[in-house]
């Protein structure tokens, strides 16, 4: 529509310069992760003499990277599945039931969104520590367990997710559901066969917003998992405690930690951006 003027070219150059500045930390982290400690100290900005991957092998072993990666994957994956199913179900009955109880419950879920994690973290740890019992030789404990943390992510994540689903479901005409009921569908089936498939766009938003939060979360897992089940952020923190000044290993570990995020971002970029916008403008 417009021609590419010299003015545009200046803006373009300025934009690219800004882009390079933005990327410098990643670039420095990456090139230095292949250097020896002496090389890093001597010259931080030049490329490594040889692209030696020994830092990576050492970091993977010392940080126990693969088990941290697996823990992060398990916790994020199952938390997202449970948050999506449970919040969608809850939001649907909250929209379709016009009783006062339903309105009050919805209001409580929304109001609780303003409670910052810091305000509940101390009693939460205390309470979770108390939930620890054995049935049929199975020791059930909320602290230091995957399922305990996943349960808490459902508790903390459901408010916003219900809110997003609630807004979306309000826009779905109830006639569709009524037609399915006339055709002999039970309500349970109506939800899973008719309503839930229509929620796909908002489900993507819910997964993006909760996924970024859970994958990167540090404080909650550090309080509830302790050292027993390290996720990537926890393993990173422990690693830095032990190898404070071994930057060559630390940089390799950091590079490893962000590679999955970058791959995910490049694959799902459009969905992520859409999710962020939908989540913010709600």
């Amino acid at each position, binding site marked *: *529509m417009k021609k590419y003027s010299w003015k545009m070219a200046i*803006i*373009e150059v300025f*934009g690219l310069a*800004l*882009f390079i500045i*933005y990327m*410098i*930390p*990643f670039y420095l*982290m990456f090139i230095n992760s292949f250097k020896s400690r002496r090389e*890093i*100290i001597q*010259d*931080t*900005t030049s490329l490594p003499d040889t692209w030696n991957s020994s830092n990576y092998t050492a970091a993977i072993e010392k940080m126990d990277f693969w088990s941290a990666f697996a823990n992060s994957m398990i916790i994020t994956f199952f938390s997202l599945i*449970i948050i999506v199913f*449970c919040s969608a179900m*809850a939001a*649907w*009955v*909250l929209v379709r*039931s016009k009783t006062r109880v339903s309105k009050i*419950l919805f209001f409580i*879920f929304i109001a609780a*969104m303003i*409670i910052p*994690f*810091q*305000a*509940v*973290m*101390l*009693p*939460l740890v205390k*309470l979770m520590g108390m939930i620890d019992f054995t049935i049929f030789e199975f020791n059930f404990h909320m602290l230091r367990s995957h399922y305990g943390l996943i349960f*808490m992510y459902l*508790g*903390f994540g459901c408010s916003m997710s*219900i809110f997003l689903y609630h807004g979306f479901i309000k826009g779905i005409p109830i006639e569709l559901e009524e037609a399915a009921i006339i055709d002999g569908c039970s*309500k*349970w089936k109506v*939800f899973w066969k008719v309503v839930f498939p229509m929620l796909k766009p908002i489900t993507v938003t819910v997964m993006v917003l909760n996924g*970024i939060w859970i994958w*990167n979360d*540090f404080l909650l897992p550090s309080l509830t998992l302790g050292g027993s089940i390290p996720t990537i*952020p926890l393993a990173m*923190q422990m690693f*830095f405690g032990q190898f404070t000044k071994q*930057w060559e290993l630390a940089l390799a570990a*950091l590079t490893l930690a*962000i590679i999955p995020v*970058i791959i995910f*971002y*490049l694959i799902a*970029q459009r969905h992520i*951006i859409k999710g*962020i916008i939908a989540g*913010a*403008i709600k």
Partner: protein
Amino acid sequence: MSKKRRNQLLFWGFLSPVLIAFTITVIIPFFMGIFYTFTDWNGVSKNIQFVGIENYISMFKDKEFGHSFVITVIYTIINVVLMNGIGFLLAFLVTRQLKTRNLLRTGFFLPNLIGGLILGFIWQFIFNSAVTSVGKMAGVDFLSTSLLGETKTAIIAMTLVANWQYAGYLMVIYVAALQNIPEELIEAAKIDGANGWQRLKHIMIPMVMPAVTINLFLALSNSFKVYDLNLSLTNGGPGNSTEMLSMHIYKEAFILNNMGIGQAKAVFFFIIVAIIAIVQVYFSKKREVEL
């Protein structure tokens, strides 16, 4: 079973998973927390004494808490202004007809997806090793010592990283707002002879005001609650001069084991966050009415 009974069963059945998880992780701890602020609870002892409002009194007398509060507020104010300025600038850039606009958008947003903890560690390396080594080579004195070594520069360093991380997020929201401006509006202004600056001032900025409200509060509450970045970049140091409120509460409770006082500070923290949120709702509602 009657139809009414069945509907009720479905209602509570569908709600029960979130209701149980939400009650146990949010509601009960929230009220437990308020209860503990009136006790001398230390997290371990079974013998809990009521102490009235003593915890709140000692909180207000605590100089370190006051210091934390002040630097958190300073940090928040700087961030709110800078992040929105930078976020808008980035959004303006990537909505021009640039050949590289998709690349730029991708790059500016990227830091946001990586957690504050990991970004803080990367920047610790940049500040402690890269910047100092460049500073020494170029013979620039103030760069040759680490920014993280002194209180004032350490706060500047934190602000820098926070902006680098979060401006791209605000950019995405500003981009959505800028793209919602009807093309005809800008074309019409052009035909009427408005120059670039006038178009920006009289059309673009007023049209993105709803996004400004959202972004101001996003930056506000995110900066105020900062923890991860604080931990990994400065760990509160040097001394405890850059210890923001979240970290202060954490240390009071889990390191000094003063659960009662720590929780009183957490409740204070909650009240401020709640006030911010209520003001936000008030402003967004007011805008809706105006529109």
